[in-house]
């Protein structure tokens, strides 16, 4: 692995949401969506954030782009402090950081021609006009594998996979350096999922793009990413390079996720170990290590004290009392 500096550094990112729940007397509950999340994405790297629903992985992707304002923490893009930027500077930065959403049906304006949707970001950022703009739209469509006629059609005329290609083209229109891809293939059938993954990897190589790849699918992350962080209830519990992280997971939660991920091999079904319990709510995380109620190795300490983060060398780190020395 070549040593390249971090493109994006996230440190101690925190976001709590207040929600009102209950009827007829609603109570205000604090949901700890992000509770001190730190990671880095190197230049040219695809870095994965994995976890189950509600673990905060999507919030992390949005908070670091300031689509949601984080409460605390630091985000540095090429060394620049993202959280300190004013509106104008943030707009300039957004050219460098783009996002691709999960749902290709919901993230495109149904009343806008695809060509217009692709041209708008370039016009907003003053990248091209007139003939040059039309030419760039055509080039973008070609790059994501769509015919030039697509520019004159509406989103509903496309299949799910094609719409995701449009979403990718729109993100690429401003020539970003980092793309936050939030479950970009989860809504797609497997054969189409492979098409989109191959497209994303091709773009990584051709344009030198970096990705923050948010996903719940460990198989997809293993194939696409070079490094990964596993999240549980708003915190990162383990981080490391791939494939080592999934071949030898250290944190009991990573081991659980790995064992529960189905593999297309009937002889591997013995790995379907018994997995206890449900994911607790992020509004009332268990005391101590959040994973202890489901953990087969839970000790007394785990019930009272959240384990400190430990760096283990070679890019690996874990938050688990089993690795206290």
């Amino acid at each position, binding site marked *: 692995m070549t040593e390249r500096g971090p493109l994006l550094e996230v440190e101690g990112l925190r976001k709590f949401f207040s929600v009102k729940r209950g009827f007829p007397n609603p109570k205000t509950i604090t949901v700890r969506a992000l509770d001190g999340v730190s990671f880095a994405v190197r230049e040219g790297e695809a870095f994965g954030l994995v976890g189950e629903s509600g673990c905060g992985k999507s919030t992390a992707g949005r908070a670091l782009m300031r689509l949601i304002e984080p409460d605390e923490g630091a985000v540095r893009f090429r060394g620049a402090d993202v959280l300190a930027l004013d509106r104008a500077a943030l707009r300039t930065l957004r050219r460098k950081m783009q996002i691709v959403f999960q749902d290709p049906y919901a993230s495109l304006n149904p009343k806008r021609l695809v060509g217009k949707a692709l041209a708008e970001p370039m016009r907003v950022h003053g990248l091209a006009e007139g003939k040059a703009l039309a030419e760039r739209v055509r080039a973008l469509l070609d790059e994501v594998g769509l015919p030039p006629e697509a520019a004159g059609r509406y989103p509903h005329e496309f299949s799910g996979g094609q719409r995701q290609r449009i979403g990718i083209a729109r993100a690429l229109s401003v020539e970003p350096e980092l793309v936050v891809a939030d479950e970009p293939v989860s809504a797609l059938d497997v054969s189409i999922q492979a098409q989109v993954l191959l497209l994303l990897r091709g773009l990584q190589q051709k344009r030198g793009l970096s990705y923050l790849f948010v996903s719940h699918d460990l198989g997809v992350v293993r*194939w696409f990413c070079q490094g990964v962080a596993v999240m549980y209830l708003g915190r990162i519990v383990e981080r490391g390079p791939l494939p080592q992280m999934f071949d030898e997971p250290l944190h009991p939660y990573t081991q659980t*996720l790995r064992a529960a*991920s189905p593999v297309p091999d*009937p002889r*591997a*079904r013995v790995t379907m170990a018994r997995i206890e319990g449900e*994911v607790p709510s992020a509004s009332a995380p268990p005391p101590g290590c959040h994973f202890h109620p489901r953990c087969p190795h839970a000790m007394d300490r785990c019930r009272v004290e959240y384990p400190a983060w430990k760096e283990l060398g070679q890019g690996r780190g874990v938050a688990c009392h089993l690795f206290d020395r």
Partner: protein
Amino acid sequence: MADAPALSVQGLTTEFRIGGRWHAAIRAIDFDLEKNETLALVGESGCGKSITALSILGLIPKAAGRIAAGRILFEGNDLAALDEEHMREIRGDRIAMIFQEPMTSLNPVLTIGFQVAEALRYHRGMGQAEARAHALEILEQVKIPSARQRLDDYPHQFSGGMRQRVMIAMALACKPQILLADEPTTALDVTIQAQVLLLLAELKQLYGMSMIFISHNLGVVATIADRVAVMYAGEIVEIAAVNDLFDRPTHPYTEALLRSIPRVDRTSDTLMAIPGQVPSINRMPQGCRYAPRCGFRQKICEQPPELAPVAGSAPTHQARCWVRAGAAS
């Protein structure tokens, strides 16, 4: 298995009307579901796997759909020819179904105790108290924690995984012979999915049920199925015992599907996408329906292939492919 099959589907064709013309969503589906067997129907969206299940239960909307041909033999009756009154006696009693979305398949204004007990009152003529006692027993079997206290809770008070357990309890209330499970774990997180799959396998043993398990996920199918039917564009393109299918994927579509899954347990650089997309129902190719996307296409593929035994595999392993199975090679 010398016994008669629990369910025998023969030449089932279900059509829908689009723009005044009838188009087949599934065509000539043939399979036997043996007693105590789990048969998986696997394929991508639009392949007809759910339509097959809905046809078996007589749930095809009458306004735009019809069973155009074929028989569905169950306990000596042809379900395809049964009237709604008799079908209703079977549905939810001897054949039950679990749906994908536990959020939308439960009634939000009725307690879960009531909803599980409903089938017992309807099919078994039980009174309130008796049905409630039975409902509690089943909710305990599907491992709802402190089921007694939760009997009077409403669906919104349950998590997604627990709601799916309630759905399973509703389906099992009358101890069905056949359970149709349509993507029962697709909406769940992987750890919860593993729990529900294990539960389904245990309950199937306990009740001596047969199960048709519908999924798009070959990993899940490999975990739970005894036998697998791969569907593409409304047809079964390959059917085999689970080990035979994964050892020797024979139809080019099955093979391509397996190669398009990024696996968590091994590193591979050969992720293969299948070019193009599934043909739409009113624009089916004349011959082999997979031919336009197939790398092994030959002249003969312009003729529709039949399911044929796969040479060198078990006799129960069949594929619908001129090139890989049958006479062309």
